[in-house]
């Protein structure tokens, strides 16, 4: 039976009342889990996994998968409204989402996020359906050397996020790298900068850092400036109609969402890279080549579209290696793998042939689930926007409480709350002196991955750097990096040469 036929068969399976209900329940849970800062898809899926054991495998995995990708929808809500990313994969959404909310365009920001999430997720599922096994094989050919080269390419994009004063941007990036160095190092297993504290032994947790730098810094800003999150005069676009996007906006969003969808899917299926890395890369990519790239970061729909489409596509992409090879593409799919085994399924290269009903039922339900998420997401926009009408005197303690509880819930450790508070204060001080905060996070996430991949690559090659050149993928990526770095310089020289020629003539 060809792929399309199997897919149709799967739809019959996915549309049964039980499975539809499971998808809906999973979607709602995922939206809530995603919106709550501090709780991410990994925690949500692992904690809800035991509940699904009573169900049959197909229904169970439909629900868990729904929780996973609905989480990517939900993460954008608190990111846009409160400037607190729901989890790591929603960080890039805050860069444009919250400024839009502050400008009185919260409804449109939420609409954009939902629409882009849907486009990205659907592209991811389509690619999964028709090219899943092939893409997984390509993903496998990315070993440590190739991933290091890819991250290096991403790191060069730091320049685009440096803001108006490059020196300050570089200092921010340096701070990010320094913070990421805290913990046990990847190469030899020796602790760095831990000052004897066991809490620092595994390094600074990303979520409290992010919640602090975005959410808590925001609280301090609110308290100091006594400004509401949105001027009273602009609080009239509270209906769904008021949140609709103009045709021009939709035209701008579509190409961005589609591009990010493809890129996000691919990053999602790379080993060790999940929705977080994907959303970073799709945002950076858009910032580099997008039409409206100069305005990105100030509150434009393209920024939200790139980030949201990326993380949803990645969550779909992470299923490709899981279903076609039995290898999890991210932390959350690793938990799903455990779940599959508990249900007696045997994830591996034979899953498609041994349990076709299960696999195609799951894939079909992902299409359905995405539609459900879109509908629910759009329907609650008016309700969500109302949150912004909460007066500032209630908003400050409310957001502070969310920050504290969110940071604690990561590891049940008050130390994380401390990190959150300190990073909030530091971020507030930095941004009030025009130091950009985004490079800190970018460096914090990418630098350790870069270090780990380089260390692994050198372990494999026994210390020889030739491994980066010998692999064709790595070579191509390195050339692209060099090209991107020197392109502006080359263009300048060429232009100067041309004007010299003209002036001579």
């Amino acid at each position, binding site marked *: 039976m060809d792929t399309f036929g199997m897919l149709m068969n799967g739809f019959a399976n996915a549309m049964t009342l039980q499975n539809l209900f499971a998808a809906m329940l999973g979607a709602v849970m995922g939206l809530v889990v995603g919106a709550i800062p501090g709780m991410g898809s990994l925690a949500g899926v692992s904690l809800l996994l035991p509940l699904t054991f009573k169900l049959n495998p197909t229904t169970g995995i439909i629900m868990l998968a729904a929780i996973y990708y609905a989480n990517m929808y939900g993460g954008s809500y608190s990111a846009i409204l409160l400037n607190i990313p729901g989890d790591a994969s929603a960080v890039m959404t805050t860069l444009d989402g919250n400024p839009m909310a502050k400008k009185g365009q919260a409804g449109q920001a939420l609409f954009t996020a939902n629409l882009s999430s849907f486009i990205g997720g659907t592209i991811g599922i389509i690619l999964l359906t028709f090219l899943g096994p092939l893409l997984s094989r390509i993903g496998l050919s990315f070993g440590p050397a190739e991933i290091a080269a890819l991250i290096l390419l991403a790191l060069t994009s730091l320049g685009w996020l440096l803001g108006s004063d490059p020196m300050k941007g570089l200092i921010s990036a340096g701070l990010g790298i320094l913070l990421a160095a805290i913990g046990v190092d990847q190469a030899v297993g020796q602790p760095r900068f831990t000052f004897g504290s066991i809490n620092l032994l595994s390094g600074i947790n990303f979520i409290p850092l992010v919640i602090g730098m975005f959410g808590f810094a925001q609280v301090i800003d609110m308290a100091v400036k006594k400004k509401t999150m949105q001027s009273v005069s602009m609080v009239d676009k509270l209906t769904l109609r008021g949140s609709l996007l103009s045709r021009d906006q939709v035209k701008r969003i579509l190409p961005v969402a589609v591009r990010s969808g493809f890129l996000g899917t691919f990053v999602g299926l790379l080993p060790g890279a999940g929705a977080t890395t994907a959303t970073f890369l799709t945002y950076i990519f858009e910032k580099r080549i997008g039409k409206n790239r100069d305005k990105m970061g100030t509150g434009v729909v393209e920024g939200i579209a790139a980030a949201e489409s990326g993380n949803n596509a990645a969550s779909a992409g992470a299923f490709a290696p899981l279903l076609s090879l039995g290898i999890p593409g991210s932390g959350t799919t690793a938990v799903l793998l455990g779940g599959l*085994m508990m249900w007696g399924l045997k994830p591996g290269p034979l899953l498609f042939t041994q349990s076709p009903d299960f696999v195609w039922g799951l894939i079909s339900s992902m299409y359905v689930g995405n539609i459900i998420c879109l509908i629910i997401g759009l329907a609650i926009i008016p309700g969500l926007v109302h949150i912004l009408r909460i007066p500032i005197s209630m908003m400050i303690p409310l957001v502070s409480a969310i920050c504290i509880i969110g940071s604690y819930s990561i*590891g049940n450790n008050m130390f994380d709350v401390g990190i959150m508070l300190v990073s909030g204060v530091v971020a507030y001080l930095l941004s009030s002196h025009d130091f950009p905060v985004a490079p800190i996070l970018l460096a914090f996430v990418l630098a350790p991955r870069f270090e780990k991949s380089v260390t692994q690559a050198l372990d494999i090659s026994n210390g020889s750097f030739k491994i980066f050149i010998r692999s064709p993928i790595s070579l191509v990526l390195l050339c692209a990096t060099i090209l991107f770095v020197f392109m502006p310089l080359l263009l300048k020289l060429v232009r100067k040469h041309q004007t010299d020629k003209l002036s001579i003539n």
Partner: protein
Amino acid sequence: MKKILASFLCIAIISSAFVGCQSQSTASPSADYPKKEIELTCPYSPGGGSDIFARTFAEACTKVGGVPKNVMVVNKAGGSGAVGNAYVYGKKGDDYSLVTMVGGQMMTAMVNKSDVQADMLTPIACMALDEFTLAINTGRYESLDAFIAAAKEKPGQITVAGSGMASDKQLCTELMNQYLGLELKYVSFDSGGEVLSAMIGGHVDAGICGPSEIVSQIEAGQVTCLATFSPERLSGIEAPTFKELGYPDMVFQMFRSIAGPPDMPPELVAYWEEVCKKISESEEWQKGYCEKNGLTNKYLNSQDLKKYWETELERYKEIWTSVGLM
């Protein structure tokens, strides 16, 4: 401004108190123990092997272990087990606190010279053992002998992937180096999934994997198991054990046990020993957990576990010192 500050402080204090409060109990075990929920600390994050172990055990306590109150799992991840260890160490005197203790936790506490070493906690019972296999991408080497020959030919250049630094997987690699006279290079990855990807993608020569990770891969013909580090052949995997090939010292299994805060009263230890025994004899544990996860069911009471910990510690110390990690 004052109002804002006041309300902020109020909420901050209340929520901190809410989430930070821990219940302490000073009651000694009596006929009506347990009177309330028991806290089972898992020193690793949700979703991982230890977490699944903790949650399955917690559920089994009430289902087949005969514990009248629920056992709640609390994740306290960090420092590869150090945070969880320290947390439970600080629970001395609390009768409602337990912790999962696996071999990896013991190893990292040793190598990192943490303040709380694993043997400072009270051993209660061993519940299961993890097994390890040496696996390759099918076709890379024809047999174990071919692999060993290739390793001898190019010392320091044949790579073996495993998850974690100074972990059980690295220990297996060092066992091979020590007893087979090889110089294999260990490359650490973050998870079993990444190890498999590196193996199948051809980036490393071999990998140390748990049996459950590779069973379906073997069935599909993608992965071949060269040998196992178990005392007997593993079901579902047709590969010889290093022991039967003539290397009895190359047997390695990682224990999964339950422990408690330091100086636990003996009656309390006995109570939990009984519960653990009941669980390990149940079908739920044997079929529902051990078999499904490729683990070997093994029950040891607290005395035997204490001796087992001691011998394992000696072993770890010897190997890690010889490698230079300690």
